[in-house]
């Protein structure tokens, strides 16, 4: 994300870019994506201990750096650019965000410092057969109070679900609908009554799991049945961070395509001098400038009434824009672009899977429409 940064922010970004290019070059990305845990534990702890990245969005009293969404977007952007396989998004952005907004102060004090210092956390939300990343269609039931928070059911496509030790699970009170009646539970893995099963992901740089709950005990975060509004805020912030991550990747593939169009010659000319190629690059540039502006607009509106709408606008645009950019990158590279050894397909896979993450463009357009309807 290179769009109106303060000097400190630009320096922070440059530091991260150097750090990831040294610690996680493409070869390491490929090595890590073939492992079960999917990340390099020593890089992960350097990120926490030396750079303090896992604490970026948390208050200092929670072991964090006290930064805002701006800095979180910078980290996400650089992770997306270098395609660093690690549980940052699941742990810091998703679970950390939910804890920040939903948990009680005592729970935040207990959990956020652990995440900030590198404990892996995640959020289990989607359910099998649901087919969409959508909190309002959750069916897993909140257990009765007398029941020690014993959870039953299945959660699907849980990011880093086999490696996370702190797991947050969203359930709903029987009979409730939409954003009403939602609760977030917290449990520590491994735990009796929960089996994680690794799923094969199309984008191997982001690990997925299915969690089978069979009476695992949990504690409710904050007030039972009342997590909805705070959960929505947390998910909207995660949406903006995800968009920043996508734009980080988009910038990389765009630069890569433009470089190739400049240097590759066919028919005695650089291929970038042909309008078919030049206009593809121009279209990605237009998409990219729009994406950056959308993220900045959403980021700057954090906390305001317009934030949910702007977050959805950003995702509706970035979903398709990033994927298109990765396709054009492959197409501009011609044959080279679709070899296994060239990185283009890793970004294409990431872009394709990011389309679904936190809701696809259709879902966000529907949400935008319903917001417009409410104001009409």
């Amino acid at each position, binding site marked *: 994300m290179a*769009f*109106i940064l303060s000097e400190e922010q630009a320096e922070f970004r440059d530091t991260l870019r150097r750090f990831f290019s040294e610690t996680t070059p493409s070869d390491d990305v490929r090595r890590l994506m073939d492992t079960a845990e999917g990340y390099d534990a020593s890089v992960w702890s350097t990120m926490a201990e030396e750079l303090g990245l896992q604490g970026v969005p948390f208050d200092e009293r929670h072991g964090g750096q006290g930064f805002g969404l701006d800095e979180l977007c910078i980290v996400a952007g650089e992770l997306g650019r270098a395609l660093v396989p690690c549980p940052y998004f699941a742990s810091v952005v998703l679970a950390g965000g939910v804890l920040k907004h939903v948990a009680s102060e005592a729970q935040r004090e207990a959990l956020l410092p652990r995440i900030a210092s590198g404990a892996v956390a995640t959020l289990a939300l989607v359910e099998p057969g649901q087919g969409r990343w959508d909190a309002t269609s959750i069916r897993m039931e909140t257990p009765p109070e007398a029941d020690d928070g014993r959870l039953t059911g299945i959660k699907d496509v849980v990011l880093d679900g086999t490696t996370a030790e702190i797991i947050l699970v969203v359930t709903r009170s029987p009979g409730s609908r939409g954003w009403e009646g939602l609760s977030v539970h917290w449990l520590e893995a491994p735990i009796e009554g929960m089996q994680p099963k690794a799923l094969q992901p199309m984008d191997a740089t982001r690990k997925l799991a299915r969690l089978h709950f069979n009476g695992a005990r949990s504690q409710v975060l904050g007030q039972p049945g009342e997590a909805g509004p705070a959960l929505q805020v947390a998910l909207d912030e995660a949406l903006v961070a995800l968009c920043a991550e996508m734009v980080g990747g988009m910038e990389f593939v765009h630069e890569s395509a*433009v470089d190739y*169009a*400049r240097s590759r010659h066919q028919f005695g*000319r*650089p291929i*970038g*001098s042909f*309008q078919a*190629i*030049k*206009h593809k*690059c*121009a*279209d990605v*540039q*237009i998409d990219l*400038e*729009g994406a950056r*502006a*959308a993220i*900045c*607009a959403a980021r*700057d*509106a954090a906390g305001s009434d317009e934030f949910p709408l*702007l977050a959805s*606008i950003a995702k*509706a*645009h970035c979903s398709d824009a990033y994927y298109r950019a990765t396709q054009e990158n492959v197409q501009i590279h011609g044959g080279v672009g679709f070899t296994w050894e060239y990185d283009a397909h890793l970004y294409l896979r990431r872009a394709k899977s990011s389309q679904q993450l936190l809701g696809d463009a*259709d879902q966000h*357009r*529907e949400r*935008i*429409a*319903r917001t*417009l*309807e409410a*104001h*009409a």
Partner: protein
Amino acid sequence: MQRSDTPEQAEFRTEVREWLEAHAEPRKGEGDWSNGPREHTPEAEAAYFERCREWQRTRFDGGFACITWPEKYGGRGGTPVQEIIYGQEEAHFDVTAGFLPASISLVGPALMRHGSVEQCKRYLRPLMRGEETWCQLFSEPDAGSDLAAVRTRAERDGDEFVVNGQKLWTTSAQHCDYGILLARTNAEAPKHAGITFLLVDMKIPGIEVRPLITMKGDRHFNEVFFTDVRVDVANVCGEIDRGWAVAKTTLANESMMIGTGTQTQGTTASLVQYAMDHGRWEDPLVRQRVAEAYVQERLLGFLRDRLQEAVLEGRMPDVDGSVMKILWSESRTLRAEVGLDIQGTDGLLAGDDAFDHAYWQQLVLDRSMGSVGGGTLEVHRNGIGERVLGLAREPRADRDVAFRDLKTSTEG
């Protein structure tokens, strides 16, 4: 997005607002005169043009025209920040100077940078005050995207040039007093090297203006014919045969302006209302498309905010003019299509039988103007590729060749 003004900015904003309240009526809605001539008749269009002139004069006399221009030329000597603040405030009032500010900022910088002291003295003030209005005589039948291919000849005869040829797409020529003219003074030189930039009185003999009716029916453009028109060499702006450099000063501003104009009508929100009123809103396809149009519209707005914010905060804008122009054109097209499509069979109608007085039908027909006028979308995509991304230009067949030896359509 609400920014907080600095104290100086707030003070200027108050000054502007008070002045506007004293001189103009607040904006009311679709029926405002400033939304353009209501009918496509020559009379209605001329009356509208007169009101635009009047407002330009009022603005100038109030000290709010050409805010950033140097005081020595009659400008305010103000900042781009003040220009933006003025624009933000003016948008709340039922006033417009129409095409004049665009025309003024095409002519003015060329004069100030390349014109003689006498030319500046003679022309700048009446230009800024809207007393004398100017048109741009650049495009020709064979010089469209390839603007440097002008064939209109200006042949030297003593202290005069004798001009013969035809210009095309001249905005508002029928209402204008003067024109800036590109004419070929040397056909032996390569294409870009034999052009001269002339200041021409539109009322002298031999100039004939014929309005061109566009597909939606208005008289925005004209053809202008020159037959043995005599122009004094004193009216050369810049140097003889070096007019392309002057023209480039003019062209640099043009696409930016078209891309950044404020769009107050036809926003997506009014589509939501339409769809709800007509029972179309429960169709998820309609909701998707309206949302898509809305996203595009907001993206453009975000970029415009960025641009203005950069200026307000004293940074270099990091948004490219061609990007703005393409997004503007595409978002307008999308909105027009969605707006018409959700009307279903009602969209088949026109005039007063159609919804919103056929506003959406007109917008659909107008879309082509948006993607050709001010440079085609293709030309702007080339610009982004070459200027922003540093991709190589096309091999050029028309450099270093005498103009008269170049292939043109008319021979084809």
